[in-house]
């Protein structure tokens, strides 16, 4: 079963007087439980693609379905609700709320979901233990390393069992060793918890972790291989 379906998705941006085509008609299906990399050089449209799948941005034309819901038909509030319950995000940087501790950052999404406090705390601790952060519950983002921050972000993204986790160049700001550690952890979570991961990268080493590699060039799918 496919958790994400994109059919002929197009998106253009206006940059001053020039119209830039970010996506020129992308069709893509992603299976449940996948560990998929969107790979391509800078400016190829990876971020645009992830933003559209995540309902942060809207396509100009085409059809996007996530976990059975067609995004084009939803209003802002429905999209917010979809993100809250079905999609986890990991961005390149500044993923965390600076005034909250690691534990509270993870709890925050569950707070928005209305999970009762005791359960929230319990689940947040468990997931932080899973990503190897049992000693950093009470640290604020500024007191953590870049790698630790990204781990908290992943923990927050997966804590309420979303349909998909979208990670936009999650390792771009990390050194290669830390980056590998993060990817290994993501893969472990993918296998253990059956969470679907879609992540973008332009780094060869990162691509090697993917079980499926979708190559993006100039806003089009240029290759799609299963490893």
């Amino acid at each position: 079963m496919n958790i994400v379906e994109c059919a002929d998705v197009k998106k253009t941006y206006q940059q001053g007087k020039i119209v830039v085509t970010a996506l020129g008609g992308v069709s893509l299906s992603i299976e449940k439980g996948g560990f998929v990399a969107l790979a391509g050089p800078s400016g190829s449209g990876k971020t645009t693609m992830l933003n559209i799948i995540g309902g942060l941005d809207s396509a100009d034309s085409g059809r996007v379905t996530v976990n059975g819901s067609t995004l084009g038909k939803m209003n802002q509030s429905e999209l917010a609700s979809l993100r809250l319950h079905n999609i986890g995000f990991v961005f390149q940087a500044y993923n965390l709320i600076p005034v909250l501790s690691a534990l509270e950052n993870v709890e925050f999404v569950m707070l928005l979901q209305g999970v009762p406090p005791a359960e929230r705390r319990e689940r947040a601790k468990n997931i932080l233990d899973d990503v190897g952060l049992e000693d950093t519950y009470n640290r604020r983002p500024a007191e953590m390393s870049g790698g630790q921050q990204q781990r908290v972000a992943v923990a927050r993204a997966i804590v309420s069992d979303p349909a998909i986790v979208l990670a936009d160049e999650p390792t771009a700001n990390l050194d290669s060793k830390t980056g590998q550690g993060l990817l290994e952890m993501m893969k472990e979570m993918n296998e253990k918890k059956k969470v679907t991961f879609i992540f973008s990268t332009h780094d060869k080493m990162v691509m090697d972790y993917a079980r499926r590699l979708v190559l993006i060039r100039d806003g089009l799918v240029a290759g799609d291989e299963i490893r």
Partner: protein
Amino acid sequence: MHFQLAWRNIWRNPKRTVVIMTAIIIGVWSMIFLGALMRGISDGMVRNGIATLTGHIQVHHKGYRNDPVVENSMIDPEVVKTAMERVLPAGAQWASRVRVNAVANNARHTAGVTFVGIDPAREARISFIGKAVTEGRYLRDDDKYGIVAGKALVDKFETKLGRKIIMMSQDTDREIASRAFRIVGIFEAEMQSTEKQFIFVTKTAAQHMLKLENGISEISIILPDQEGVKQVADNLRAAVPSADYEVQTWRELLPLITAYLAIYDGFMYIWFIVVFIAMGFGIVNTTLMAVFERIREFGLFKALGMKPRWIIKEVLAESFFILLIGTAIGNVLSFLSVFALSGNGIDLSALASGLEFAGMSRIIYPAIYSHDVIVANLVVFILGLLVSVYPAVKAARFTPVEALTHT
């Protein structure tokens, strides 16, 4: 956790938070403290007006107020006394007086004065004169020729204790009555005009001089509770023959002060609004700054699935805390300031002649009215939250993509 988030956010930039809190503290302090001073001034005016022979309620013979001549006296005040016994609440005090315009003169000077014949013991309980004598003594029931005059008049007449003053006025036969009195006491009052205006003798001496027999000019009443004045006046009015008597409250007897009070009320609220406008700009400005510094974070909130309504609540919660702390400290400081001045008041004797013109007392005792305090706090709180809605809505409007790409 929402409140925790808001609370921690306001301390991310402690300097800015302290600055805006200080503005709120000063604003609230100035509203409440200066408000209390203004109330103190108006309270002083009312107290003074009531003590300067007005009382809370007065009864006159019909026509006396328009033409205070001896013919308009109450010849047989018994009916009023019986009515008062029936309607006045326990603890009420009253005194009757003879009060006519007269001319005072001695060898060198002449002045128009208000000549008041009083019942010394009763009068002392309802007006200022009982405690106002600073030289010599107060009147006694058996003072046939004793007179108590104000210090300003005595100075003007270049006379002193023990000397004579001749009083002249029209008696009931429309003849000029005149009689010599001896100064037994000199009084001082809040205002020089009071010292120059009133001359006191015993009621019997005045009645004798004016051939009034038992007649009196007015009855002045002080109630234990100022709130009930109107009701009691209405009851009394209903209890005396309306063809012969007039009953009035101090508000009717002191129209100028009543008008002042109304103006003060309006002025107070204008003052509140002016202070708030200055403060409101500060609040909007600070909140906007705090919001624009965190565009990225609001993008993150949205990406996480936070609805715009929640973001508005979060920003308003931050303003709420700042307002709460600011108003709390502002209230405490203003109460402390008022408390510090409640003992001795603010002595403005140096400016006495100027103040007197405005009918103000020499010493202001700030008076906190709970009503003013509530209004001041509500103005700051409700308007403070209202003006924060604008930055809050701005924060909620950032689209996630533009916010997340914002650096």
